[in-house]
């Protein structure tokens, strides 16, 4: 879970852990890339507006490196153009804030276990 708002990160992690997922958190692009290298997650929940390179750039970088895990982008900016940019960067799903936590969990479920 990569999100610079610590409260939101904590809430999302608690909800995902309740759903049975094991989570690690990061608050920046560097921490996100390091966590992917170290933990090889099934999916990454990635905020677009994070310090340093944006979540979009992180996603683009991961896909360029051949990473095939799921990417769920979350953002407070959720115009059609923002969604299209995320999809073009390789995101599997996009959720605009504020979103129901249940919707996030089901989105992660769909990305990690599509069937």
């Amino acid at each position, binding site marked *: 879970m990569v999100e610079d708002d610590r409260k*939101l990160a904590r809430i999302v992690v608690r*909800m995902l852990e*309740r759903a049975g997922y094991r989570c690690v958190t990061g608050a920046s692009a560097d921490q996100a890339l390091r966590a992917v290298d170290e933990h090889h997650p099934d999916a990454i929940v990635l905020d677009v507006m994070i310090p340093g390179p944006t979540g979009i750039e992180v996603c683009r970088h991961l896909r360029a490196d051949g990473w095939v895990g799921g990417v769920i982008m979350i953002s*407070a900016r959720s*115009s*059609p153009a923002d969604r299209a940019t995320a999809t073009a960067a390789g995101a599997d799903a996009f959720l605009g*804030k504020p979103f*129901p*936590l*249940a919707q996030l969990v089901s989105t992660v479920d769909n990305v990690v276990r599509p069937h």
Partner: protein
Amino acid sequence: MAPRAFSLRVRLAALAALGSVIVLGIGSLLLYQDLSHQLSIAITNELAVAVDDLAGGAPPVDSALVTAQLIDLSGEVRAPAGEPPLLTAEELAEVSRGQIVVDRPVPGIGKDARLLARRLGQSGGEQVVAVGATSTASLTHARGRLVLVLALAGPVLTVGVAVAAWLLAGAALRPVRWMAGEAATISAAQVGRRLPQPPGGDEVAQLGRTLNDMLARIERAITHERAFIDDAAHELRTPIAVLRGEIELAAHEPDLPPPVAESLASALEETDRLARLTENLLTLARADAGQLAPGDATTDLVAAARTSVRRVPLADGISIEVRRQPGPSCQEREPVLVRGEQEWTGHIVRNLVGNAGRYARSRILLTVTPEGRYVRLVVADDGPGFPPSVLPRAFDRFARADDARGQPGGAGLGLAIVASLTRALGGRVTASNGAPLGGARVEVELPLASHPGLMGRDAC
């Protein structure tokens, strides 16, 4: 300031024509007077020469031009003897005091004639008067010709000046019209565009620079406003997301006392309401800032309407029907393409259906009808309709009809957003009561997008 009835070009041509009329009128008057004066002096001088000749002792002439006589003060013609005198008794009396010049008909010369008489010295111990007479028909004729020429040439010259002024004004204003046309195509979605700068340093080039400076200032203001809205969206949505998440987490705790569970459910509802209000205000702000310009995207209004209708929760017992009416040149199954993102057209449909669902008794009818260059989207219900006092301000922000319509509603932004989005997409919206279901009826007209597959025909 009231708009002027005529264009600047027409007014300049009319002003030039008026100026030419005044100049030509004054010039013609001066020319007429001067020419008349000069010709009159020439005739008088001719008579004076004849009279001088008589005074010098020459015999009286009786040429085709001048008739001359010597008359004594009793009125008898001394030379040429036996002819009737050219002067009347009164004129003889007057000439005895000096020289007279008289224009009057003279028998044998005509009705246009001039007499010049001068008293001479003694002639055989008796005072005599030398008188010459000549026709002034040539003067009259010349004056008539001059009037004719001026009367014919004046209007021709005036029209010529007006046409020349029209052409010159057109040539001078062409760059201005061109810049106005270019400026009219710059929408809020293209705030970075500038007018092509006319070369040189004349007034038109100065106007171009001034307009481009103004566009730059507008771009800065709009960019600032858009950045503010984006920042506001981010700063508002994130704490709402945290608040919602905290409530959701708490609500998922096991074994909550019922009052706490109820409070958390209520808090979650209010948080969602706060989130909707925030989204609605942000949408309005974006529409006001020109961020919702349609661009190149097109949307099938029928598909958008069917999808959006399914996303609107309606109370039990209320049914909704979506009808696609065939247009004059459109088949019923063809898509109805309008400009803009599906998100915006869907937002319009959701707000209209949501508003109708709040007041309908049992039915909502949504019709999509292509008509010419526009498509008409009508959402009608069988509820009590808009109160007459609300109709004129149905699309105002925070305008609510709840008191009159008996049910609690939203914040009063739904129809205001419909109006803003419709305007942003180049359309218009009206509200009324009556047919087809007897309740409220909101009609949205949106411009059809051009359809590449229809070879220039309006898209259906």
